[in-house]
């Protein structure tokens, strides 16, 4: 009886999601939720606009120190792997003004699109409760890997190679 109660309690604890947030794409092969966000130059940009490319979707903010550490790596990796179909897309989850975000991105030498994030998009990706959060999406819009928090440059590069290796399935 005690054993049964303990097992039930434990499984219920494991099933509880934090803050009732939607889990977001979890497993390899899950579809990355599509969204439309405004870019820094005012254009409406959809994630599906990048279908056929290997996308590193990076949630960040100007107040996030580890985000600032990985950004120069992203700039280098975009230059290195852009010709092989890599597209890094930054989503700024910030209270800062678009001008401040643009100034920050310019200061960091960002060479990829930066979109102005919204809570609804964060929710679709599991709540984005801390930053950075990176989602590696293959050419068909499917999740290959996700990374929570700052990882090493080599880990990031390995995940990029994995999404670049994906082949686009003709529609």
């Amino acid at each position, binding site marked *: 009886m005690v054993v049964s109660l303990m*097992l039930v309690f434990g499984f219920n604890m494991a099933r509880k999601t934090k803050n009732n947030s939607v889990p977001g794409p979890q497993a390899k092969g899950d579809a990355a939720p599509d969204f439309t966000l405004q870019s820094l130059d005012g254009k409406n940009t959809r994630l599906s606009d990048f279908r056929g490319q290997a996308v590193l979707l990076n949630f960040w*903010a100007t107040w996030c120190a580890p985000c600032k550490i990985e950004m120069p790596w992203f700039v280098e990796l975009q230059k290195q792997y852009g010709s092989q179909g890599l597209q890094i897309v930054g989503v700024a989850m910030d209270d800062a003004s678009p001008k401040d975000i643009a100034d920050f991105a310019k200061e960091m030498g960002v060479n990829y699109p930066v979109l102005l994030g919204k809570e609804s998009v964060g929710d679709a990706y599991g709540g984005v*409760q801390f930053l950075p959060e990176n989602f590696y999406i293959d050419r068909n819009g499917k999740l290959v890997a996700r990374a929570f928090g700052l990882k090493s440059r080599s880990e990031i590069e390995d995940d990029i190679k994995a999404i670049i290796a994906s082949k686009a399935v003709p529609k």
Partner: protein
Amino acid sequence: MGSALVKTILGVSLLSVLLAAQEPPGKKSPSITMTPLPLTPVTRGKANTVELQFHVSSGFHVNSNKPSAEYLIPTALKLEPPTDIMIGGITYPEGQEMSFAFAPNEKLSVYSGEFDVAVMVRPLASVLPSDYEIHGQLRYQACDNAACYPPKQLPVRFQVKVVKAPPAPHKNPAQSPHIHN
């Protein structure tokens, strides 16, 4: 044999409960708490220092009041005292320098563990002696060694007891050196 089997089942069950209930490593939420301050006497008409003690949850740090870079969100206390009780100034401690393992040359100025913030409380001389509550917010933004969490506000409340200044010591009038009969 029977009791050994029961013990094994209980052990496995306990382990599965603990494993099932675990948060992903490093992903519990950060928080700051304030040590409750006992009712603190403050003299009206004078500047009084009240020390507030804050505690950052284990495994996390917050930017100091003077972070190392412009875009980082400083820890800052904002108070709304009652009328005629002035907040003269808020003094923050120096931050500790720390860096991330992947970027050892990037230094951050942070608070971790416990830190004290000194608040200058100056009730006007006309304030009625009584207990008064001062409240406000501590704004902070926390990180662990790999990720940062959105900025938060901690409600801050403490009570002060406004007391009268002690009477000034009487000065004896100047004494004549001559003996008067």
